[in-house]
């Protein structure tokens, strides 16, 4: 292993692609060097955290850091699972419900995904046992062959369709999952078992990449995140023959997520495990801040599987908001499976909306835009590319939804830390803390602010993608105009749902 070399391009600030080759790797075709998001944030701006804070690079390169992050997740997960199985059956007095559906969900949507991409995947305890078993090790790199069959995931399924289906399957039980501790415990146990089984049969983090129900939307929405792991200097990667990040070496593992960090241009499948930092003998990886949404402009790897993920998430946000916060009590009764017929009705509505209605309406508007602009771009390409404009709107709608989960229900967290199992404990003297909605007067402003920001960003991304896809500015504007109208309507509908 050669000594790490310092790279010249480590400084923060504006980093326009250095060469045509690097430009091709980044995939920002048709995006001018002076392009800005919302007219404010330069698309190419980056701030290299690992160059600015050398101790951070040291921490990330340590093999202990990965283990400790996973143990942190495990420390939360084990008591929660225990509470789910043997604690109180009443949802709001059980740690598993409060931790998973109030604390974790809010943390994920309000902080982790928008700011730190898939950092949750680095501490997620669910696949840890499988990974340790597969590696036969917790920390050190073992030279023995991995445990298990090490098969490759079937090529036709190397996309988001499997996670779309698994996510939708779980979404059908959302009313039960979010209120019954045993149901959440059963789901988490099933995920651990599935991850373990997948680790034994398939290579590396196949489960996380292709099967995790959370991984799909984390991947899609992480394209909007303000953080990225990328190669530092492309010329270094290019001239480096060994490329440890894609081939296991004696000192470290290749990317467990089956990515090629040398050419990675999107956050979608980067699990932020930082293994590439540990394995790169050139010390050529960096953790950077960036403007949100850069990856949505990457004209590579786009596909209908991700488009449908965007439709599913946007549709699900609308349905969950209607169910949990809308004025229709009957929807809530249906979702909670009070009657079989009601529950079947709820399933039919959910599946029809997310799988057919949202894509069909979006397709109609794209078709109209294509006609208006007279572009020769194939409908499928325009449909796929423009669907990425739904990502900011979708994520910000979920953020608005999450504010409405956290602010009214956050006080349960104070109570639950004293009595996590609902057994009448009072560990820290807060077990009798009453349900206290917090900051509700600010809720409508936060929600409307989030939706307006999401709309503005979606429109901006949409017009940039249209320009990238269609070519000239006028045709792009005409192609995007109907979708812009649709996005405005979606934002208005969510606003009405949340504060109307």
């Amino acid at each position, binding site marked *: 292993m050669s000594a790490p070399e310092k790279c010249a391009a480590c400084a923060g600030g504006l980093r326009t692609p250095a060469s045509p080759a690097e430009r091709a790797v980044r995939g920002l075709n048709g995006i001018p060097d002076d392009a800005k998001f919302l007219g404010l944030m330069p698309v190419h701006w980056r701030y290299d955290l690992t160059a600015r804070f050398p101790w951070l690079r040291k921490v990330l390169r340590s093999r202990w850091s990965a283990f400790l992050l996973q143990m942190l997740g495990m420390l939360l997960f084990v008591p929660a699972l*225990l509470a789910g199985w043997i604690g109180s059956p009443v949802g709001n007095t059980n740690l598993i419900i409060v931790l998973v559906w109030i604390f974790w969900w809010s943390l994920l949507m309000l902080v982790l995904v928008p700011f730190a991409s898939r950092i949750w995947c680095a501490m997620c305890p669910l696949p840890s046992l499988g990974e340790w078993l597969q590696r036969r090790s917790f*920390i050190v790199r073992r030279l023995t062959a991995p445990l298990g069959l090490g098969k490759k995931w079937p090529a036709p399924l190397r996309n988001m369709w499997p996670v779309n289906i698994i996510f939708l399957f779980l979404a059908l039980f959302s009313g039960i999952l979010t209120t019954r501790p045993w149901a959440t415990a059963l789901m988490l146990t099933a995920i651990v078992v599935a991850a373990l089984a997948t680790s034994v049969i398939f290579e590396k983090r196949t489960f996380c990449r292709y099967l995790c129900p959370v991984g799909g939307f984390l991947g899609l929405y992480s394209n909007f995140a303000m953080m990225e792991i990328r190669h530092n200097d492309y010329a270094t990667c290019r001239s480096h023959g060994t490329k440890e990040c894609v081939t296991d070496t004696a000192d470290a593992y290749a990317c467990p997520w089956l990515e090629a960090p040398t050419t990675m241009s999107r956050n979608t499948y980067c699990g932020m495990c930082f293994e590439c930092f540990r394995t790169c003998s050139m010390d050529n990886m960096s953790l950077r801040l960036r403007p949100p949404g850069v990856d949505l402009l990457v004209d590579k790897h786009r596909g209908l599987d991700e488009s449908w993920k965007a439709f599913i998430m946007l549709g699900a946000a609308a349905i969950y908001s209607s169910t949990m916060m809308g004025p229709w009590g009957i929807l809530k009764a249906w979702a909670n499976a009070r009657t079989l017929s009601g529950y079947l009705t709820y399933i039919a509505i959910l599946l029809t909306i997310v799988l057919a209605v949202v894509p069909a309406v979006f397709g109609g508007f794209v078709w109209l835009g294509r006609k208006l602009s007279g572009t020769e771009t194939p409908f499928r390409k325009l449909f796929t590319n423009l669907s990425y404009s739904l990502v900011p709107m979708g994520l910000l709608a979920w953020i608005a939804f999450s504010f409405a989960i956290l602010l009214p229900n956050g006080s349960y967290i104070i109570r639950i830390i004293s009595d996590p199992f609902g057994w009448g404990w009072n560990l820290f003297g807060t077990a009798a803390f009453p349900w206290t909605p917090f900051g509700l007067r600010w809720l409508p402003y936060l929600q409307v602010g989030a939706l307006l920001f999401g709309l503005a960003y979606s429109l901006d991304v949409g017009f940039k993608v249209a320009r990238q896809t269609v070519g000239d500015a006028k045709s792009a504007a005409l192609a995007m105009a109907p979708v812009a109208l649709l996005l405005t309507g979606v934002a208005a509908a969510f606003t009405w749902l949340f504060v109307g």
Partner: protein
Amino acid sequence: MRTPRQEWLAGLCLAAVLVGTPAVVLAYQMNRVSADVIVQVDQEHGFAPNAIYVHPGEPVRLQIHAKDVVHGFQSPKLGVRVDEIYPGKPALVEFTAPRTPGEYVFACARMCGTHHGEMLGKIVVLP
């Protein structure tokens, strides 16, 4: 191949979490002395917790919070009864656990709504 020391340390950390957490939780629950228990009660969920474990002869104090309407608390075998527990005004119920191990049923003492008849729980006196 020899296992490095850091692997043993990591394995111990994991074992402590996987085995230690349930062990500590159950040990704490089984050995709580002088039970001081917060009980929440509402019509939808009844008493939570609805099973309270105590040791023979130990002093027990229940702090009962009504969350929706006026409830009550009674356990004839334990000789305790509170007729009215108002939301926002928790009631304190204190008694000494019987010397005889077994289950002692408690119930809502006030006709509080349609689920009144289902509002039951038990004090379990451990052997």
